[in-house]
């Protein structure tokens, strides 16, 4: 059995604020293999973005990785000092963010920004760098790439900027790409273009992709594996089919039922009652119990651990939904 590219075990990232401790990520285990696409799905505040930032080592005080290991290519990332992490960032692990409007510096040309990454991690002549930039822009589908190199970000539309950002991220052929809501700010037709582009590139170069999003529909079309997060914990994880077609955790079930379907019209959507609890005041036991229709006493007393439902599919629930 080959070792996974990324292996996260027991990750806890907490933020110590004036008002209290925010346990943004509270004990998370998952792995990503080479060339695999993992979807990290959850609503706002569930901690999915913080997982991504923790892997990249971009957690600023008052946040801190309290516990856990993040094994990447055999090394535990939190152990590394800043200098070594910088060598990894951009070269081995790259990140793409949500807002294409602010992810690029408006004062520098596209070429400057693309070359910045290359200058950091590779040893290339100016000529080689320029050719590589042209090559990358064509790869992400930007035509007339040579002329466009000299353009500034404001001369590109949102979709094209995101393409540039993906090009920058993939410039050094990283082994892992973390994409945090990469298409949320884009229109539907552009979103579809960008997602197809990412999928194609990622499969072509055998790059692993961690796709962090709140959009279950996107994740159902893009991913090999899915993990669903709630209040800093994983409530269910498994293959794409297992989660979409055979989910067992009441939260996942509720979430899938809440989404209006394109193929048919229902009278009423399934709704999860109540609200996400205050992250600083989580209930004892299962975090989802107050909103769960199937909750029993045990759920309020003890916190459920992930139990295996079938091979490659686990849910953190004492009483998984019957199928």
């Amino acid at each position: 059995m080959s070792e996974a590219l990324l292996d996260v075990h027991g990750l806890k990232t907490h933020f110590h604020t004036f008002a209290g401790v925010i346990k943004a990520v509270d004990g998370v285990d998952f792995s990503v293999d080479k060339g695999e696409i993992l979807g990290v799905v959850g609503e706002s505040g569930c901690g999915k973005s913080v997982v991504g930032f923790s892997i990249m080592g971009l957690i600023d005080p008052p946040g801190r990785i309290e516990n856990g290991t993040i094994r990447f290519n055999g090394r535990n990332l939190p152990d590394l000092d800043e200098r070594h992490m910088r060598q990894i960032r951009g070269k081995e692990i790259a990140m793409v963010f949500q807002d294409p409007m602010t992810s690029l510096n408006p004062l520098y040309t596209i070429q400057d920004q693309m070359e910045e990454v290359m200058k950091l991690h590779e040893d290339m002549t100016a000529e080689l760098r320029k050719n590589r930039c042209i090559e990358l822009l064509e790869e992400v589908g930007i035509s007339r790439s040579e002329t466009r190199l000299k353009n500034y970000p404001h001369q590109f539309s949102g979709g094209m900027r995101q393409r540039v950002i993906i090009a920058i991220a993939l410039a050094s052929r990283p082994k892992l790409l973390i994409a945090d809501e990469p298409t949320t700010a884009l229109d539907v037709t552009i979103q579809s273009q960008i997602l197809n582009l990412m999928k194609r590139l990622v499969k072509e170069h055998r790059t692993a992709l961690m796709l962090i999003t709140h959009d279950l529909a996107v994740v159902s079309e893009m991913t090999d594996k899915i993990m669903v997060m709630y209040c800093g914990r994983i409530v269910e994880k498994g293959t794409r089919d297992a989660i979409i077609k055979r989910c067992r955790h009441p939260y996942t079930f509720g979430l899938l039922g809440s989404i209006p379907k394109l193929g048919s019209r229902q009278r009423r959507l399934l709704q999860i009652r109540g609200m996400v609890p205050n992250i600083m005041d989580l209930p004892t036991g299962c975090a989802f119990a107050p909103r769960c229709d199937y909750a029993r006493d045990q759920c309020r007393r003890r916190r459920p651990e992930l139990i295996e439902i079938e091979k490659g599919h686990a849910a953190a629930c004492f009483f998984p939904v019957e199928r």
Partner: protein
Amino acid sequence: MNHLLEIRDLVQRFDVSPGFFDRLKIRNGRLRFPKSIVHAVNGVSFHIDRGEVFGLVGESGCGKSTIAKTVIKLHEPAGGQIRIGGEDITAYNYKQMIPVRKKIQMIFQDPYASLNPRLKVFDIITEPMALNGEKTGKAMMREKAQALLHRVGLGPEHLDRYPHQFSGGQRQRIGIARALSVEPELIIADEPVSALDVSIQAQILNLMMDLKDEFGFSYLFITHDLSVVRHISDRIGVMYLGFLVETGPSEAVFMHPKHPYTRALLAAAPSVDEKHHIEPMEITGEVPTPLELPPGCSFQSRCPFAFDRCAQERPRLASREPGRMEACHLLDAS
């Protein structure tokens, strides 16, 4: 029979010209000061009947939000007609609009910006009532406000709190209560659930449907999310670059889309369930600029089926099947 809302050939433009000196250009050897006009809405016509939900869907920049704001006269229309219950309000001034505003209310997208952070919930909800000359005593107003909050799923203790003490979904409920306060006949909902989490979105959509059934008003529901519009609308209109390209009953349009843009939208929309009935269709390119409209069809630069007529002549909305209209030359050919 008068429609509740009828829009005919609505036009809206915005002058985004920069200052005098920034406009200075030299063309053909002469000094020119060209204006930059955004053609946001280019002759849109549709109607909404009582108790109906009309979904207006399209990507950013298509003009759907502008239509919403123009209907409620936040912007004066540049052309066309707006009729409410048969009454032509297009040229109404501020005073004439006062009684009309009681009939139309609006719900906004951003729950964090649509409520004044310095006002208490009570003041926010009762503002439309106070404006529309409802001279009720303080106690009566409070009772009414409590009833409204209860109807949207909040408690009387929330009346004296400030918006920042509520979650996004709760704020949206407050916005809905505000709209309901004057018992309108038409509620314009501009992307009301786009900024909410999925599970809260379902709650709010269910609430909106329940309220509609209970009070009998209509919605002009604006969104970019196809699954949401599919769920909530009776009829839909698809917009592109300020033009209405297809309209019809939502079931029919979603099952058998006719306009190439509608088909592309449906093909692109990610979906949890299988969409076997939609054939994959990828369109390339980006939305053209609304500053200079192309002469023919606005979609032809990206349309995989465009032919020569498309670049020359702008297609008009025409009905080929009862209840449905499309603006496309391709459909004429057959």
